[in-house]
């Protein structure tokens, strides 16, 4: 447990899964008090990470087009009506 407290989760999905596990552990009251406090801290960190992940992706719809050199380049996508 101790080692993971400072580790960044690899993805939103894994963070959320871990968070769910922490909620379960804390709610069943199985963890010792010291562990519970560590879990709480880890849980807060994960909450922060997840919230950040939800906001961080920027809205951008792009389309690849070939330039004169035949290389693909991303340009903003303008939907044709």
């Amino acid at each position, binding site marked *: 447990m101790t080692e993971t407290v400072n580790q960044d989760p690899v*993805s*939103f*999905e894994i963070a*959320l899964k871990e*968070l*769910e596990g*922490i*909620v379960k552990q*804390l*709610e069943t*009251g199985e963890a*010792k*008090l*010291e562990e*519970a*406090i560590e*879990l*709480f801290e880890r*849980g*807060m960190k994960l*909450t922060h990470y*997840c*919230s950040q*992940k*939800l*906001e961080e*992706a*920027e*809205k*951008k*719809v*792009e*389309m*690849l*087009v070939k330039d004169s050199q035949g290389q*693909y380049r*991303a340009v903003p*996508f303008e*939907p*044709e009506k």
Partner: protein
Amino acid sequence: MQQRPLFGGQSEPPESASAAQVYTVSQLNAEVKILVETTYPLIWVEGEISDFKQPGSGHFYFNLKDSKSAVKAVMWKSSHRFMRWQPKNGMKVMVHGRLTVYEPQGSYQLDVVQMVPHGKGDLYAAFEQLKEKLQSEGLFDSARKRSIPMLPRKIGIVTSPTGAAIQDILNVLNRRFANLGILIFPATVQGEEAAPTIVEGLGVLNLSRQIEVIILARGGGSIEDLWPFNDETVARAIYSSRIPVISAVGHETDTTISDFVADLRAPTPSAAAELVIGTKSEFAERVRNHSKRIHASLHNRLLYLRNRVNVAARHRALAGFPEKLRTQQQMVDDYEGRLRAGLTRYHQIQQRKLIAVQQKMSPGHLKHLIEVRRSRLSNLFGRTRTSIQKKVHDVRRSAERFEAKLTSLSPLAVLERGYSIAYSEDGTILKNATQTSSGKAIRVKLHHGLLQCEVKETQND
């Protein structure tokens, strides 16, 4: 046909051409050719393929047979060039073609221009064949299907930039998760050039480090329209994609080879957008909910513990702490009292001795002696008092230290940190494994409740 006798002499050959026509072989074959080819121009024949050959020329040579009979058939390369499936021995087929006579051999054969599997369409046969082939190669194995990430950093889409499909997908995605990165590869999704552009699109999007899922999409259409998604090269491109692929081709009832190979099949392009990501608000709600529950459970736990500690502090087992302190205090008081009493007694004895001596001595000398003794005595008295006071002071100090230690180890502080206290049967606190032995009963006081235990084994450090 001329009548011939069954037995006896041979019939006489005609004397002249005018009496009866005599054909040359070439004439015969030429007439049969005309007769046959005009009688059976374009016909459908059904049968089973046997003795199928395809030499270097690429033409198909085979026999078409049923249970009693067989007929030769040929299908020129120019005729089968657009066929999407490969004939094999034993297949039941319907062929469309002309009956032709090969004059040099006097044989006839079917010149096939079209061949379809019996009872099924051409495309269906091609579909079934490719499906079978790829399946046997393991391209559809469920074990290799990858899961779609819950929150992809970026979504790649291979589709036509002008179709309804892209609009549907973008609308749904915008509704579900507005701040998403999307990269579209504009592919041709119909006709001969479609498959190569789809393959290229999958390849190009696979170069991106950010794209975590690809949607391969096309709106509804006829089976011919959707055909590129039954293309083998497309199937293999999906299979070799490093990034998981969602196939969303046509309507719900359409099934393509792409659907089988893809990591996930969506019934429609809109459905693909629904499957690829949850709604942002739902995600946010989940995170918020977890956070609330974590706070609440720890808060409740601390509340509960505080309550337990308060209860425990009034408990008999812990009442021993202040009791011991009181005992110590009493001992100190007692000791001090005894010292005082002893000192007084000594003083009185010395006084009495002095008076006795005084009575024996001459007034002048005695007076001197008395003075000497008195000063000595008072000196002695002072020193004794100092040492006793010091002793009393020391005992007080150690009692105070003990009290301070007890305060720092107050039940609340100790038990809140999750420690437990073990008592021997006679109530002394166990600090050392040697204080007890296996088989002995001990009580373990936890922050929640008390355990009556039996020692199984003792181990020294």
